[in-house]
């Protein structure tokens, strides 16, 4: 993938290229929004609105001052906070910045990517691997994964939790 600043420059000349940025960030952004508003459908709406807003203001974005992802997540977070305010709901989040960091993709060396992918491929039982790939790589919701596997949604949550524990051990 080309450098982010170059890609943004290319997008300003050809809006079709924006799909590349959306593809790169939408999974993490939807998860981030879902954790803030507690609803997958609303999270997808908010993430989409954030992408639209970011695009409309892209000319004003300065890649030398911040990463695109930081800026995009900030827009989405503000939209989520607006949503919670309108619906008179509160979210128990001690530190939004920390929450943001956990779902924001960052640069990894190819070697590290390979290590993580291999660790995922080795997850046992197979359901753990499938759940991790579906949720973090394909961008599916808990409900979608549960429906496809024919199991209750809490089983999917358990698979993911245990899979992450396995990965933590493998990657530590």
């Amino acid at each position: 993938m080309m450098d982010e600043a170059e890609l943004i420059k290319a997008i300003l000349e050809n809006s079709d290229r924006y799909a590349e940025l959306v593809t790169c960030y939408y999974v993490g952004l939807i998860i981030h929004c879902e954790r803030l508003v507690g609803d997958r459908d609303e999270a997808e709406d908010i993430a989409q609105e954030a992408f639209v807003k970011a695009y409309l203001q892209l000319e004003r974005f300065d890649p030398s001052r911040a990463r695109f992802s930081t800026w995009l997540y900030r827009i989405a977070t503000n939209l989520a906070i607006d949503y919670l305010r309108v619906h008179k709901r509160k979210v128990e989040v001690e530190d939004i910045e920390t929450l943001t960091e956990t779902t924001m993709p960052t640069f990894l060396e190819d070697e590290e990517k390979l290590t993580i992918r291999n660790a995922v491929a080795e997850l046992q039982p197979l359901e753990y691997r499938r759940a991790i790939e579906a949720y973090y790589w394909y961008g599916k919701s808990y409900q979608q994964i549960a429906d496809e596997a024919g199991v209750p949604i809490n089983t999917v949550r358990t698979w993911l939790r245990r899979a992450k524990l396995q990965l933590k051990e493998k990657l530590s």
Partner: protein
Amino acid sequence: MKKTIEQRLLSARPESQHGHAEFVARTVNAVRTAQTNETFEQLDRKTGITKKERFMLKLKRTARILLIGGAALAISGATYAAADHYVLKWHYGSTSMCTIEPESCVKPTPAVIVGKDEKSSVPADWKIGQWGISAKSTGQYHLQYSVSSENKIYFTSAELSLAQPACDLTKNQSGSGRGGFFWITRYPADGTMDTSPLSVKDEVALLDSSGHKDLYKKIGNYYYYLMTPQTACTAIFGRPATDAENAAGPLWSKTIQALTDLLATFTPSS
């Protein structure tokens, strides 16, 4: 800061697994629509056209309706891009089938949708001329719908993606006495509905307060309304659905199912 497992997983996402295109297509379409709206607003400032006039102009320009056998699906108020149009063709017989073909495949034939309803006795004189669509009876139980070349029924690939959540909502609307047709329409969140003096936001508040929250869904900058056949019939024709129209219930639910299935597998060619 040390990276969490989640952050590392998201950062290591293989490009080959970026195949979940539905959200991306929907978002890119929303971006295009937002761009178009911006352009409209820029033009409006030059021409002095009012917001209401602009909205009505857009509605008139882009109103479209899809008649499928005994069912009708309308998506209106949409601003479609100049390219990337598809035509949805519906065949109903012993096997229900729905196909989508690029615009180039159906030119220059003016009739783009043909529906065959083997059981319904829906009258052929539906007051659908207002949409620029005509229907004629081709036999005792056969209806053929056609549309003039000026009023082709087009869906953009992105609109198909957008229509999917609204179609999912219809699953809650099935049941006896609800057959005939249904109507999905979308309105810009800041627009005014053509059939109501209320703003869309007021309309949504009204639906909320009257316990009909499931009749709409906000997706991006648009509200999608789902009308039951009865409601839609009153809205379109100014009268409740007839028994004959209600009798087409199974066809209606089959239509929705086929369309939903189709939308689930549809990948824009872009």
